């Protein structure tokens, strides 16, 4: 039976970018409003899962040739690395710092090192969720 899912593929092409924008917004808004690394990573992983649903494993791997286990490992390395960076400055483990920086267009913004820790959490969540879903969907490696 020849299946025809052109509506699903066309809708996915539009909706994936909306979901990715939502993930980036949730990641960056975690400091002052609901959001953060964990839920941003989950939404990012759901966008990737939607691409897998619409296109199949091989096509997505052709455009996005990552090994998601390595992405999870990079995330854990980043999270623990920000913890050890404070040890190098003579502080306790996982001490976070923030500085106020004046940007040319958007004015005074606060740059915190928690963002790097949250980026580690996000990469770990994306790697773990996508690895689990690919392995239980009889695709696997």
């Amino acid at each position: 039976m020849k299946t025809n899912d052109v509506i699903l593929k066309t809708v996915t092409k539009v909706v994936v970018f909306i979901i990715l924008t939502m993930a980036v917004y949730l990641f960056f808004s975690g400091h002052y409003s609901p959001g953060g690394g964990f839920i941003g990573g989950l939404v990012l992983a759901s966008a990737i899962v939607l691409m897998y649903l619409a296109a199949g494993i091989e096509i997505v791997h052709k455009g996005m040739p990552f090994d998601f286990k390595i992405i999870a490992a990079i995330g854990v390395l980043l999270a623990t690395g920000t913890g050890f960076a404070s040890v190098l400055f003579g502080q306790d483990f996982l001490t976070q710092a923030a500085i106020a920086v004046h940007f040319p267009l958007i004015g005074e913004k606060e740059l915190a090192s928690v963002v790097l820790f949250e980026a580690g959490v996000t990469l770990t969540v994306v790697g773990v969720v996508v690895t689990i879903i690919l392995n239980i969907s009889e695709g696997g490696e």
Partner: protein
Amino acid sequence: MTEKILILSLVLFSITIIVALFRIIRGPSMPDRVVALDMIGVTLLSMIAIVSILLKTKAFLEVILILGILSFIGTIAFSKYLERGKIIERKSDS
């Protein structure tokens, strides 16, 4: 007055969820249950919007968007399972 209207609409949405729950329990076929689950997702999303108006907070607006995304992806996954038997294919056949 506004609060009474909002609570009334919450009650009506609850009745909608109960009716959809009847379709989930008694539904003769699997697609009936999937459509009822999707409808419960949308109704729950509206109830969260009304609750966030009642509590006068903006903290639930992300929840509405995320629930919409998850309900969409869940319905697509269910319908691909019902149509083809597997959710994620190794190779697309188009």
